[in-house]
């Protein structure tokens, strides 16, 4: 299982992703297109972190007012990781990277990579 301590679909951020996809497109895209989950799983292995940890790092608490805001530092970090992931030897690198970006977007993390 590598960096994941349980099946990937059980992580809260993955549940959120699935809900977002269902609301946006209808059906159950994560069930209908398992390659999306495979892509996220591969990315987790690539960065050595589980999905909740990745999303968690993308936010920080602003000291001034206690507001939860996006972390520029970690967004930049993951943007670079996604770029590297995209060009990994694989026939579908761009699609797999797009799946990871979608996972982050549905968790409120806009990353352009």
């Amino acid at each position: 299982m590598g960096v994941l301590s349980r099946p990937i679909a059980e992580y809260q951020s993955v549940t959120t992703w699935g809900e977002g996809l269902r609301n946006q497109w209808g059906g159950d895209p994560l069930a209908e297109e398992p390659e999306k989950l495979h892509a996220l799983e591969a990315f987790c292995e690539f960065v050595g972190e589980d999905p909740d940890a990745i999303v968690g790092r993308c936010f920080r608490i602003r000291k001034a007012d206690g507001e939860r805001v996006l972390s520029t530092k970690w967004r930049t970090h993951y943007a670079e990781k996604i770029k590297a992931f995209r060009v990994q030897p694989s026939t579908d690198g761009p699609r797999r990277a797009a799946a990871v970006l979608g996972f982050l977007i549905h968790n409120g993390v806009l990353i352009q990579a």
Partner: protein
Amino acid sequence: MEYQELIGSRRSIRYFEPDKPVEQDKIQKILEACLISSCAVNAHWLKAVVVKRADVSPEDLEMMKNPVQALVIALAPVHIYFYCDLGVVNEVKGSRLKQLVDAGALNPTHGWSHKFVDELVYPQILKPLTESPAYPIASAFDCGVAANQGLLMAFELGLGACLTAFNAEVVARYTKPPASWIPLYVLNVGYRAESPEAGGQRPRPPFEGQYFLGQYGKPFPRDPKVVEELKRSKMLQAPAPLPNRKQEIRELARRLNLPE
């Protein structure tokens, strides 16, 4: 395309064919449309620098992105950077108004003469205007009028376009604007990857809340017969989202390798 259909068919296009170049003559026609727009005191504050995306280094393109326009500038093959030249009024000092006098557009019937421009309009109205805090606002309004004319021309030419903000500092490495130019918006131009309907006419606030007759608070009456007429002329079109929009976006996402 007829004018009413043209303005009704315009959409902010956000999906472009990234590798399909835009012909130089079409870019020129967009700029020519800007140039002949209505313009206060014939000043022509709007300046534009055309940059082909292919001429921008990948590193700089990354730095030009912000969270809301990143994909648009990455897909659009042509970026037309619009600036407002705040220095133009004091550069031309009324000479463009005198051109209008000579051209018969401004006439003695309305009080215009070279002497009127030289002794009153420029020194007593225009020059003080340039020192007013409202000057950039008025100038930017004029630029918007001109830019919109270019925007509509893009659609008339079968292109798609979308106005977005831009990172002035990074873009300036390419456009090298004079100090008197203030950055406005970039017109992203290219061939549409999405359908001409682009999902339908976008939601707008109620007409009656926007426009008034006589005074604020008295809505301008919206005659349903006029609305029907505008539907027939295709200025008012089927509202978004059209039934196939999600399918269209999904197909675009897959073809262009975008997140869903």
